């Protein structure tokens, strides 16, 4: 028993002088466990070879295909059409990032910049001799670091974030999670004070309005809310010193 789906996708090429933003509708037969990835692939093959969108892993782990699906930012590859009762699905590119074309936005440049801003790598003065037995880490500590290392940089938390839309330079939940991740990692020797230098302002942890759509929409169910609160407590304590 299949039904007709209507996919309405925003089309717009910002590099063209004549292109105007418009919705284009495509009608498809629904199949069991159909995802937006399957829909868009079919649309490109059968109806509109020019429709721009991004997929890489198509398995919910690379973060490339985040887009607005009926107004909510989601990973298109993991979104099932059966969850849309009336069979009408509207696709738009995510706000908060530079628009490339149609459903495609430039998350890569934003995330590389974020990495540089929070210096998202281990800071240490230790020299590691890789021929020697590795440093011991408590198993629970390694697991906790992993829990915070699971962000896939899809950008959904930013597209969900009112602060980010008003304050373009806001580091967002993902940037704050990254600081919490390195604060937690025993390999990193940075102090709370060091992190205060990076994100202790309104573009960082004090800009967050705690609306928490970031955590609501995060496809990896990361503890964004508690980690932002944690960083804020740490940094407030630092400021009051």
């Amino acid at each position, binding site marked *: 028993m299949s039904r007709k789906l209507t996919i309405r996708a925003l089309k717009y*090429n910002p*590099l063209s002088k004549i292109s105007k933003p418009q919705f284009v509708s495509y009608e498809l037969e629904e199949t*069991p*466990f159909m*995802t937006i990835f399957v829909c868009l692939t079919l649309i*490109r*093959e*059968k109806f509109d*070879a*020019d429709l*721009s969108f*991004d*997929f*890489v*892993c*198509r*398995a*919910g*782990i*690379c*973060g*490339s295909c985040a887009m607005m699906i009926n107004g909510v930012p989601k990973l298109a590859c*993991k979104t*099932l059409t059966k969850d849309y009762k009336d069979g009408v699905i509207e696709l738009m590119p995510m706000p908060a990032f530079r628009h*490339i*074309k149609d459903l495609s936005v*430039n*998350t*890569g*440049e934003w*995330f*590389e910049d974020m*990495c540089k801003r929070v*210096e*998202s*790598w*281990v800071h*240490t003065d230790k020299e590691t001799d*890789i*021929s*020697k*037995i*590795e*440093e*011991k*880490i*408590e*198993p629970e500590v*390694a*697991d906790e*670091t*992993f829990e915070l*290392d*699971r962000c*896939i*940089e899809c950008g959904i938390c930013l597209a969900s974030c009112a602060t980010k839309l008003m304050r373009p330079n806001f580091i967002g939940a993902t940037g704050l999670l990254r600081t919490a991740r*390195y604060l937690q*990692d025993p*390999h*990193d020797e940075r102090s709370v004070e060091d992190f205060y230098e990076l994100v202790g302002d309104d573009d960082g942890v004090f800009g967050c309005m705690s609306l928490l759509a970031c955590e609501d929409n995060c496809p990896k169910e990361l503890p964004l809310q508690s980690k932002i609160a944690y960083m804020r407590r740490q940094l407030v304590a630092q400021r009051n010193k």
Partner: protein
Amino acid sequence: MNIQYSDALVIGGGLAGLRAAIEVAKTDQSVTLLSICPVKRSHSAAVQGGMQASLGNGAKGEGDNEDLHFADTVKGSDWGCDQEVARMFAQTAPKAVRELASWGVPWTRVTKGPRTVVINAQKTVIEEKEAAHGLINARDFGGTKKWRTCFIADATGHCMLYGVANEAIKNEVKIIDRMEAVRIMHDGKKCLGVIARDLTNGELTAFVARGTMIATGGYGRIYKQTTNAVICEGTGAAIALETGLCRLSNMEAVQFHPTPIVPSGILLTEGCRGDGGVLRDVDGYRFMPDYEPEKKELASRDVVSRRMMEHIRKGKGVKSPYGDHLWLDISILGRAHIEKNLRDVQDICKTFNGIDPADEGPKGWAPVLPMQHYSMGGIRTKPTGESQWLDGLFACGEAACWDMHGFNRLGGNSCAETVVAGMIVGDYFADYCKKNGEVIDTNIVKDFLTKEYEYLKSLANKDGKNDVFEIKNKMKEIMWEKVAIFRTGEGLKEAVDELEELYKKSLDVKVHNKELDCANPELEEAYRVPRMLKVALCVAYGALLRTESRGAHYREDYPKRDDLNWMKRTLTYWVEGENMPRVEYDELDIMKMEMPPAFRGYGAKGNIIENPLSAKRQEEVDSIREKMENEGKGRYEIQEALMPYELQAKYKAKNQRIGVDYE
């Protein structure tokens, strides 16, 4: 005219490319890295199970070392690999995993005391040593003597990729994403860099460098059923092929993974079976012990895949709208284990099939079917990673064939290879760039740029008869129907003929959007599909000519491994203007092997056409070993006497392990 210069240029932003770029950056040379997607989205992120490295920390890894890792790798390759490369690899892998730990990759660690694991479908308690507490843990994988696969739950690749990408950013690697290399520039002898197309605005840039490395991954997307990401189209290898000089090697060596989920083809990691999961048929019966009593579900991937297909052919598959499949049952591992160590697997099953694999009984079984997974073949290089036919062009990772995997790769060895090759080849590459600073003739660069622009313009203006997507899908079907797990001469001949026809058609397609200065996915297909067809032809033609079965290459009409005639690598190259690749061969020298060809330990016995040199060499090896052991020589000295190999001193250094120190 856009020209950018750097000392080194890396094409591909997965683990191999990024790790190699870091190696260059550490020598204070400028390095530019081009990637078709943001680098952290690379297919490396999809690695679930882990990377092999003989740390020997856990109770089930005790006694592990480079020798065992080497031997497993050579057997796994069905003696098709370059043993010197396998040695280089096994020696460096522990260093790679330890380096990543120091970069913050949160490896799962050993907890001292007893823990319950599932071995051969039985709950078993093992005791972890106090001394190992806090060191990097490892799980079991197919075809290995020890539990050697280091992991982070089932998100190993994600964590490794982020660790390495962050380190690349720290080391000021200039990363340019959404930039696709479309042509290699060369003067007939030396590589000058590449022409690349910006996928956001269509602009062409000539990236000129002293050395160029291709690390663009595999070519799974030439198959209809594949676990590979949509970007794995093999076009990195194809542009090397299009130089007319570089050779692709062993392209017919294509690995099929036993447990992608049906129908999406998303992989459920080998860790499922490594941790104790089993395969079941339509009756819920565990069939693998009947076929492979010794290794069961953990025989090597080619063997398990074939046994599964064999069982389906016997009518024991489960009927479904997507064809027959089998079941993977991990519920016996327990919900707690699954929710900690196989969380992504659970998520995939739930999202894409509405199944919770932690549910006991048939309700929690996941439908699986072997699909294309890995490309053992690739751009042929020396053990240093440099092409033998084009100076200054290097390759590493899955895109390359320095030939570590031969005809079958062991699980956990590819993700290990990416970083290990990134280190070793990256170091040789950095050296090359430092030493080779000749002045470049910009006229050649200009010619390449102009030619490429004209080519893309003419392609956009094509108003041909054919639809590029139809051609692409037809190719995928041919590859899946006729060049997959079971191959016959007849099927392969048909495949080659049909692919050749498709290739000709692909040169005459219609492109609707004529714009060159924006993202134009249709135009992108128009230049990628002919390249994919070239790669597909190398695979199919190599398979047609190879009249034997070795590793993942299985010929029903030639079921034996033929060491007498086929101890050789296939090399394919492409002469511009022709419609078919040309083929030549490169002999493997049994008399130089540390481990001469023998039985693999799984699969049918006596299925080899023996080469008399194997016995001769084995005698030599045995006598050298016996003599040196009697003289009290250690394993390093004996190894050196059997098969000396080159490796940078920093990587060749002995690896320390608990309990045995450096021995």
